[in-house]
C-alpha cells in the first residue's frame, strides 16, 4: 500500500505534538475532510486540533486545496491553520 506523508504546521503541529508522520494512503476517493475526521478520532491532540475543520487549511503535494478534495495519488498532505505571512 502506498504511503502518505502528513506534515503539520503552527498550532496544528503544536497540538498534535509532531511535525510529520507517515500513514498508509487511504482509498483515492477519500476526501481530505474524511481523512482529517479519521485522524481526529484518534483522540488527544488530534481530536483537539481537528475539532473544528473550518479552522484548517490543507495542501496536497505543495498545492493549496479545499478539504473536499479527494486524496487521489497524493504523496504529501499538509494540514495547517490559515496562513499569516507577509
Amino acid at each position: 500500500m502506498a504511503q502518505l506523508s502528513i506534515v503539520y504546521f503552527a498550532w496544528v503541529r503544536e497540538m498534535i505534538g509532531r511535525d510529520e508522520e507517515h500513514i498508509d494512503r487511504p482509498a483515492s476517493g477519500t476526501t481530505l475532510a474524511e481523512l482529517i475526521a479519521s485522524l481526529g478520532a484518534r483522540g488527544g491532540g488530534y481530536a483537539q486540533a481537528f475539532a473544528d475543520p473550518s479552522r484548517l487549511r490543507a495542501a496536497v503535494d505543495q498545492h493549496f486545496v479545499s478539504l473536499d478534495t479527494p486524496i487521489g495519488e497524493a504523496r504529501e498532505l499538509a494540514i495547517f491553520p490559515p496562513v499569516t505571512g507577509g
Partner: protein
Amino acid sequence: MKRVNVQSEDFNVATELAALEALGGGGIASFTGVVRGGEGLIALELEHYPAMTAKQMERIVDDAMSRWPLLGVTVIHRFGRLDPGARIVMVGTASRHRGAALESCAFLIDWLKSDAPFWKKEHFADGATTWVAAREEDAAKAKGWS
C-alpha cells in the same frame, strides 16, 4: 529579472532596489514589512513550509509578471525568530510604467499574506505566546485581484 528568496537572515533593501533600478525601467516600487513592537511583544517567530514556500512564491511572482509588464520582481521573505523592528518581507517591482510597478507591488504583498505558507507566532514579555490569526480582510484583498 526574477528573484525569490526564503531566508532566515536579514536582507539589504538598498542592494535589492539598486538591482531593480539598474534594469532601466523608470519606476521601482517597494514594500517592506517589519515586526511591529509594542504591547509587550518581544519576538515574532515565523514558521513556514519549506517544501512549498519558495515554489508557491514563484507561482505568485509568475502570476504578477503575466498580469503586468514588469522588468523585474524581487520577493524576499524571512523565517525564524525576529525582534521588534526587524524586517520580515520585502517586495520590489520595476517597470517602465509606474502604475504597473505600484499595482504589482500591492498585488504581491496581498497574495503573500493570503497564499504563502507562513505562520506567525507572537512571544510576549510575560512568557505568553499566540499564533497570529489570519484576517478575513487579507483573504478578501487577495481575492479582489482575481
